[in-house]
């Protein structure tokens, strides 16, 4: 299984990426590459009227820049993301594809006017990162609220779920991985 590449999109605290990398290795049992030199500039995706960044556009830039990369790519950023019909997204992924992106912006308690809680932020980021990576492995949303693949549209729902796959999703992930290896 090729390693997962973590790509920072500035602004981003370097330690955020390092902590996330450890969590992902633990969950997926796949090597993770973190390469700060391969970061990308989000400016082209900026929409001034919304003061947000178009996550789909960032995904396509990411894919173009890392077309040689074999494994999954996950971009992490502090900017606020959106897709055109929605007011915001926590992240976006190509279903059964290669690339995904997550933003820490709305995972941070400070966004909601609350005091900073770095451990909570790390937890949330790990869950959302695993969730989006799960989509790239072809997993859909899960009905079980405690499963990491449960759809969350609010941070409270992210806090409710765990960072692990439920047995059914874990089985599907395993199945998809084996199919990927054989193919």
């Amino acid at each position, binding site marked *: 299984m090729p390693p997962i590449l973590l790509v920072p999109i500035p602004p981003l605290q370097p330690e955020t990426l390092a902590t996330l990398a450890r969590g992902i290795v633990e969950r997926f049992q796949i090597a993770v590459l973190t390469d700060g030199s391969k970061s990308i500039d989000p400016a082209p995706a900026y929409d001034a009227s*919304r003061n947000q960044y178009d996550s*789909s556009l960032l995904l396509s830039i990411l894919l173009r820049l890392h077309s040689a990369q074999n494994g999954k790519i996950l971009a992490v950023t502090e900017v606020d993301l*959106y*897709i*055109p*019909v*929605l*007011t*915001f*997204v926590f992240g*976006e*992924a190509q*279903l059964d594809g290669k690339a995904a992106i997550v933003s820490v912006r709305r995972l941070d308690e400070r966004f909601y006017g609350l005091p900073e809680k770095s451990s909570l932020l790390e937890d949330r980021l790990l869950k959302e990162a695993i969730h989006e990576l799960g*989509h790239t492995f072809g*997993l*859909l*949303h*899960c*009905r079980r609220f405690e499963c990491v*693949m449960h*759809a969350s*549209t*609010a941070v409270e729902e992210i806090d409710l779920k765990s960072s692990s796959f439920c047995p*059914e*999703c874990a089985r*599907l992930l395993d199945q998809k991985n084996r199919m990927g290896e054989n193919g």
Partner: protein
Amino acid sequence: MASNNQHRTSLLVVDDEFVVRDSLSKWFRQDGYRVETAEDAASALRLMDKGPWDIVLLDIKMPGMGGLELQKRIKEIDPSATIIMITAFASVESAVQALKEGAFDYVTKPVDPDHLSHLVQNALRQKSLSKENIKLREQMSHLLTPDEIVGDSPEMKRVIELASSVAQTDTTVMIRGESGTGKELIARIIHANSPRKFFPIIAVNCGAVPEGLLESELFGHEKGAFTGAQYRRKGKFELADGGTIFLDEVGTISARMQVQLLRVIESKHFTRVGGSESIKSDFRVICATNRDLEQAVKEGSFREDLYYRLNVFTVSLPPLRERRSDIPALTQHFIRKYAQAMNKTVSGIDPSALDLLVRYPWPGNVRELENVIERAMVLATPPAIKPCDLPFQVVQAQPAANGDSLEAVERAHIIAILNRTNWNITRSAGILGIDRVTLYNKIAKYGLKRP
């Protein structure tokens, strides 16, 4: 996983903007939904063939045919389609219009993801509820109908066969049979199994309505049409719109009403008494009679043209005495019915009592049998109905005298009285006006045995 083994939820996104189609379809695919997109009304209508779509998301503003017009077209193709309008802030007015025309809800771009997912879930929940409702109604109508007809005899099987084959059509049905054979029940079964079943069946007993009032009863009247007509009233033909009108005892109606009836059955148009407005009603006619209509036609008391108009498809109900093999099942059916209604634990009938029922000629047919059982259920002590619980005429009719000699008649009469009193010697002797010893002697003489 969200994608389970059940039917996959399907979504159609119609929007002229690529980014909207693209992002919405990606977003919903992650929920496991089947998503297709269309960039304009024409391709959306083409995609209706690939439906049915559980939910259609429609952009209200599109070049060419807009969302409002498209909503109407989609509703024509699939009236059960759940439509959610997508609008920009500027077009809230047209969103309100869309809601009035039956859209489930609307969202303004950009939409809060939480709001959108709840909206879709609510729409799906409502959809599954109404689907369930339809399914339950279908099950209900199956539960209510065939169960009421009891009888396994070849005669009854033939009747049920005829009734179910004519039910699906719109043919006029004439049900013939003696009083109490269940003509109205058959009419209701035909209606309940017809495509008209979700509309009413309106029964009119033509024989029970006074001649002067029948016209107003059937066609309704306007206010002031006659003395006492203080309000406008709808007639039975108007009420039966979409459903069935059941004309019971159609053989009793007057010559004048026969003409009117013929006209309304042929044209489906009529006017209320005292009114001038022509009213159209879509009804099916089922009629019933126990008269010999052919004879009435010959005598000139029943119009021949009306006879032929009504007598398209005939279902003849056999009298109960011609299908005695159904009596045990019918008896059991009524026992169960009244045991439940009276909350009694009587659950059966003594063989001797059943024997009496099977032998009785039943001039009043099934209705009489039902009345006899109802009465017996009041008197009976659990667990079963005994001969003494049956009315006099049933018990008495049973032991037909074996010849006309005084002895034969006496023997039959003694059996009848003994059965009536459930072999209570003292009471029987009292009724017969003899003492108990004499009765014992007669029982011994005629070799009678307690059943």
